[in-house]
C-alpha cells in the first residue's frame, strides 16, 4: 500500500491545490525553453520555482517553502541581469532559438521520464516511519541544525567561501599574473599607474 500524505495535509482541497501548482510548475518549466526571450525564460523559471515552493507550503513545510521562494526569486533576478549583460540587446524583444541536438535531447528526456514513472509506480514503497511533527517543525529543525547536524552546515560555509574566492578569480578581468607574469617581484607595467597623486 503506497504511503499517503500525513493527516495535516490531507484532503481534497490540498490535492486540488497541489495538482494546480504541479501543472503550473511543469508548464512554466517547459516554457523556459519555448519562449522567445531570455527575460521571459527567467520569469517562467521563477514561476516554476515559486509553484514548487507553494506546493511545499501546502504540505505544511513552511520553512522550506518560504526559503525556496526567497532564494529563487533573488536568484532569478540575478540571472536576468547576467542575461541582459551577455545578450547585449533588449532581452524581452529578441527572439531566440539556439539549440543543438533537439531531437536527441527530447528522446532522452522522454525515455527517462517513462523509465522514472515506471519505477515510481512499480517500486514497493515502504510505509511512513513515524509521524510528522506539527507546530514544532521549525524549532525541531533549528535544534537539529545547531545539534547533531551542525557539522553539515559548518562544512557548507567554507565551501561557500571557496565559491566566492573562485568566482572572483575566474570572473576578474585582470589578475596579478596578467600584470606581472611569472615574476611577481617585477614592478607592474600598468597603462595608468594607480595610487595617490597619479
Amino acid at each position, binding site marked *: 500500500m*503506497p504511503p499517503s500524505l500525513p493527516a495535516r495535509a490531507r484532503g481534497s482541497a490540498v490535492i486540488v491545490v497541489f495538482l494546480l501548482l504541479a501543472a503550473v510548475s511543469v508548464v512554466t518549466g517547459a516554457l523556459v*525553453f519555448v519562449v522567445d526571450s531570455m527575460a521571459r525564460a527567467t520569469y517562467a523559471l521563477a514561476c516554476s520555482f515559486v509553484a514548487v515552493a507553494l506546493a511545499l507550503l501546502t504540505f505544511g513545510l513552511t520553512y522550506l517553502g518560504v526559503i525556496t521562494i526567497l532564494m529563487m526569486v533573488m536568484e532569478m533576478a540575478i540571472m536576468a541581469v547576467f542575461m541582459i549583460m551577455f545578450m547585449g540587446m533588449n532581452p524581452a524583444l529578441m527572439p531566440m532559438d539556439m539549440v543543438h541536438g533537439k531531437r536527441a535531447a527530447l528522446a532522452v528526456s522522454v525515455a527517462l521520464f517513462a523509465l522514472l514513472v515506471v519505477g515510481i509506480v512499480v517500486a514497493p514503497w515502504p510505509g511512513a516511519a*513515524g509521524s510528522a511533527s506539527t507546530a514544532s517543525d521549525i524549532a525541531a529543525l533549528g535544534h537539529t541544525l545547531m545539534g547533531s547536524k551542525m557539522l553539515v552546515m559548518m562544512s557548507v560555509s567554507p565551501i561557500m567561501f571557496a565559491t566566492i574566492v573562485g568566482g572572483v578569480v575566474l570572473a576578474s578581468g585582470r589578475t596579478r599574473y596578467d600584470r606581472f607574469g611569472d615574476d611577481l617581484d617585477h614592478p607592474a607595467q600598468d597603462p595608468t599607474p594607480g595610487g595617490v597623486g597619479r
Partner: protein
Amino acid sequence: MTLQLVLVVAAALFCVGLYGALSQQVVVMVMMGLELMLNGLVLAAAAIWLFLAPRPTGEVLLLVVLAVMTLEMAMGFAVAVLVHRRRGSDMTDMAGDLAG
C-alpha cells in the same frame, strides 16, 4: 494524494530540465536546465522526507541542496563571464575544447 503522484510531477520537472540542459547552446540556458532539474529534486526529496521519514534531519539535506543550487549558479556564471571575456561568446559550442 500519494507519494507516487508527487514523484511523477518531480520526474516531469527533472526531465524538462534535462531536455534544456542537453539541447540549449547558451550557457545561461544550460544552467536554467540544471536549476530546473534541481527543482524537481527538491520536490522529490521533500515528498520522500514528508511521506516516509518525517524527521528534521531530512530537511537538512534539502537545505544543503538549496545551497548547492546557489553555488552551482555562482560558479557557472563565473565561468561564463571568463569564457565570454576571452572568446566573446556565451555559447557552449565555442567552448567545446574545454571538454575533458
